[in-house]
């Protein structure tokens, strides 16, 4: 067991000892990694999810990472064919056994930063003025602060390819609209409280819309159907309406 060090974060034994396992119905185990959003928790969830992808057990269906949890879906029938104990106990035991190895420190992967071009304001960002007014910042300052950080994709949920991002400048936090829009177009970039995100499908929505990306976050025909995945980093890059049109093949508005 390697000694804990400042560079590797908490020792894996300590993390794996704090992970709680509980059933999510009769065909899933929910691993609970702690309270609150943190980089350490995110890293641990990603590590276990990646480990299970590399070393699937018989009967594993899929994993769903979230802010502080990892849901591990399994087929009780297939699990029961592989052993004698009840399916939940067998899966829980397997997971407890693999946690230390899955959480062992690994050399950090090179940080890949996905660039998301965004045309801010105007037709594409009808609520930019609302955010500017709420925060007391000039619209250009809102854009600059939104495009400055490197965001972490904590999880994908809500809709296909919809990223929950961490890293929004706290000054930009703005409440949701009182009346949600019946349809928010795909690619709309919005702010809701302390969160920012990108709509991946046309859906009803109450986020304050400050811009739009011409990129498709969800493309079911593509080999990788979503542009983003949990664990990636991204940055918003401001573009003009003319540049937006060249991406999407449509004339500028």
């Amino acid at each position, binding site marked *: 067991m390697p000694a804990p060090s400042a560079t590797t974060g908490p020792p894996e034994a300590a993390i794996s000892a704090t992970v709680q396992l*509980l*059933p*999510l*119905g*009769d*065909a*899933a185990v*929910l691993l*609970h990694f702690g309270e609150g*959003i943190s980089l350490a928790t995110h890293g641990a969830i990603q590590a276990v*999810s990646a480990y299970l992808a590399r070393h699937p057990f018989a009967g594993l*269906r*899929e*994993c*769903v*990472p*979230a*802010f*502080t*949890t990892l*849901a591990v*879906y399994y087929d*009780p*029938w297939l699990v*029961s064919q592989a052993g004698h104990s*009840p*399916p*939940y106990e067998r899966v829980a035991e397997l997971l407890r056994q693999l946690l230390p190895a899955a959480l062992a420190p690994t050399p950090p992967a090179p940080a890949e930063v996905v660039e998301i071009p965004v045309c801010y304001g105007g037709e594409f960002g009808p609520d930019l003025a609302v955010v500017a007014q709420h925060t007391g910042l000039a619209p250009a300052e809102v854009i600059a602060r939104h495009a400055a950080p490197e965001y972490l994709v904590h*999880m*994908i*949920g*809500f*809709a*296909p*390819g*919809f990223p*929950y991002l961490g890293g929004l400048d706290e000054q930009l936090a703005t409440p949701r609209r009182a009346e949600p829009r019946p349809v928010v177009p795909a690619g709309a970039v919005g702010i809701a409280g302390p969160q920012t995100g990108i709509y*991946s*499908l046309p*859906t009803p929505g109450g986020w304050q819309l400050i811009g739009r990306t011409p990129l498709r976050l*969800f493309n*079911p*025909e593509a080999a990788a*159907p*979503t542009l983003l*995945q*949990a664990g990636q980093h991204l940055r918003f890059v401001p573009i003009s309406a003319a540049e937006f049109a060249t991406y999407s093949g449509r004339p500028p508005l």
Partner: protein
Amino acid sequence: MSISVLRPGLLTTVQDLGRPGYQQAGIVVGGALDALALRVANLLVGNPETAAGLEITLRGPTLRFETDHLVALTGADLTPTIGGQALPLHRPVWVRAGAELVFGGARAGCRAYLAVSGGLAVPLVLGSRATYLRAALGGLDGRALRAGDQLPAPGPTPAGQQLARQLRAAAAASHWAASTWTPGPALRPTPHPAPSIRALRGPEYGQFSAASQWAFWHEPFGVTAAADRMGYRLQGPALARTVATELLSSAVTFGTVQVPAGGQAIVLLADCQTTGGYPRLAQVITADFAALAQARPGQRLRFQEVTLAEAQALYLAQEQRLHALRRALAVKLFTA
């Protein structure tokens, strides 16, 4: 080799067993709400259980078979007829080219399944033919059936051909002929008008007040009109947590009972989001998904607590019955 849609019915969609494996990309599993019914229907016509069929909701479509087909209807009894004669459920049925399948009133349950030997050959999207309406994905152009649609049905599997020959001989001049055999009663449940749905405690069960926990297991809940493939909003006792902390989004799945701040429970179905931020009070057991899927708006249901060991034993028993049906049909379809 197509099937013509003369009238679409209330909500008729192409479904299979869904597209698992993409939930971490936020893509719902979806698929038949009463998967047991679709699996049995597929087995009866010599299909793999994963073949695509139709999910027919409350008011059925009118369909014309343009060629001879081998079909099976399971799930809800929506009073199907051909040429004015009632069609039996839970049996393979040979239908003659030109026959029109018509549905009457909904006698029991909410969703019927029509399997066609050889399946419905709509394109695979992310490994599945299931229609996901919200993202306009899969099925027939990602939407419910419309009048004038032609469903691509390539025709019977080898096992289906064998059975179709026998039934056609028995049909004489009739439009259709059904088998004399049917699966055991456990694989053709009759939907109950006020079902008792078995469930486990959910991850946030302990956050609810003792009174709310008691009420959940003992009071009836009505299925409201806000009921679709994503879930049912229920009407019943207001359920309250004893803690006010906001929850971080976490996994939800078919059968999750979640409770928004208003206190009225929602039970999620196949097209539910992959994650949600409401407290998860309970989780319906897999063996009762069929009963849940057959509940109609306006009906009442109750929840009954079972242990995880009981739930998994029921899960395995259901799979065992399907396994036995598969084996029995393999003998019947290939050697009879």
